[in-house]
């Protein structure tokens, strides 16, 4: 009689074999970074790499932020049985919603008006409640920051017992996520040769965390921030002409600010899709436009962040394209 060997109840996680027992195990760290991919055509004469943050498990650079925000709340005993409320243009909320779903925690998101429908649907699919908020909701006290003000007032209501707000704009855990993961990844992936780093102004967790880490390795590395125009349509980015500067922004690590308008950002986004086959979102277009025109030396390694993919912005792109790509009979 042939005896059967009892199979183990499940296979163990093996990152080498790309086999995981929990989606959270795909979150990046310096030993398992997101890819750096060179931009070969649209930034001719440069050595520019994009860090493809949309290959994170929940689709954006904010996966890193969300896990640090939640871990911080739990470590400080601030979450407990409370619900989460957060203001987000979508990506942090999506990552928080995914992690909250795994945790059995309810999430309410206050999201600025005008964020693409795709993001709102993704959030609702993940079980989050979405409160779309005009920027000028509180016209007297909170011009252009209505979603943040609304999340704050929800968190403060009912004596603060129902909700806790991670508050990515003021929470140092947001900076720590990038100081401890994104920054070291870039340093290692470029073998310490990175000379310039480009990222957008948003919550400022990325630019502050990565900037601080890279400056500690070599203070001569240039940290360049990208700021959109006022009234822009580049979700995730903020113009400080109309929005409050986040408390976590550390100007001391920033060498330069490049302003990019919407047409330039969208034109570069289209070129990245068509010339590099990089299906990125519009904030990546803004970042690459800034880097391509920055006057980098050809052999100077530069890294730009690609925060998310363009698949969450197809309704925006449909407007951009108009009749382009349709048969003209």
């Amino acid at each position, binding site marked *: 009689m042939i005896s059967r060997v009892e199979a183990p109840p499940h296979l163990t996680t093996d990152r080498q074999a790309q086999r995981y027992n929990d989606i959270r195990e795909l979150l990046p760290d310096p030993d398992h970074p997101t890819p750096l991919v060179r931009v070969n055509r649209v930034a001719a004469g440069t050595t520019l790499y994009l860090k493809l943050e949309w290959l994170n498990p929940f689709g954006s650079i904010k996966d890193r932020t969300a896990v640090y925000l939640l871990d911080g709340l739990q470590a400080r005993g601030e979450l407990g049985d409370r619900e989460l409320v957060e203001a987000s243009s979508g990506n942090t909320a999506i990552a928080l919603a995914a992690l909250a779903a795994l945790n059995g925690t309810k999430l309410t998101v206050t999201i600025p008006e005008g964020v693409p429908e795709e993001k709102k649907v993704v959030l609702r699919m993940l079980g989050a409640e979405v*409160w779309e908020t005009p920027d000028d*909701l*509180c*016209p*007297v*006290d909170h011009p252009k920051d209505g979603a943040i003000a*609304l999340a704050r*007032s929800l968190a403060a*209501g*009912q004596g603060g017992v129902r909700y806790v707000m991670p508050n990515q704009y003021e929470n140092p855990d947001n900076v720590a996520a990038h100081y401890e993961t994104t920054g070291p990844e870039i340093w290692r992936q470029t073998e310490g040769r990175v000379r310039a780093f480009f990222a957008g102004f948003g919550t400022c967790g990325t630019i502050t965390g990565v900037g601080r880490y890279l400056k500690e390795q070599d203070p001569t590395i240039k940290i360049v921030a990208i700021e959109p125009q006022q009234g822009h349509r580049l979700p995730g980015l903020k113009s400080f002409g109309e929005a409050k500067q986040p408390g976590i922004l550390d100007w001391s690590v920033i060498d330069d600010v490049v302003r990019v308008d919407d047409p330039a950002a969208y034109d570069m986004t289209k070129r990245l899709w068509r010339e590099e086959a990089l299906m990125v979102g519009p904030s990546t277009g803004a970042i690459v436009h800034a880097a391509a025109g920055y006057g980098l030396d050809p052999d100077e390694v530069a890294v730009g962040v690609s925060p998310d993919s363009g698949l969450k912005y197809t309704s925006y792109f449909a407007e951009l394209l108009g009749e382009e790509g349709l048969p003209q009979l």
Partner: protein
Amino acid sequence: MTTQINVTESLDTSGVLCPLPVYKAALVLKRLQPGQVLELTCTDPGSLADIPAMARQRGDTLLKTDDRGETQVFWIEKGTSS
């Protein structure tokens, strides 16, 4: 002689801080018909500035404000273009 205001719907946002009263009021006004009236009760003193500004921005008419110290009551008539 005072004119009678016919209230269509009442909303009490007592204990809630701005901008939540504005947000909730806007949601109710959205489902009202032009000419219908929302009676809104607030306790956040900021409402005295924010609610008139909201009504102006939305194209609604603030018929009356009653500042009772601890509470503020607003009567807002939905506009034709809001």
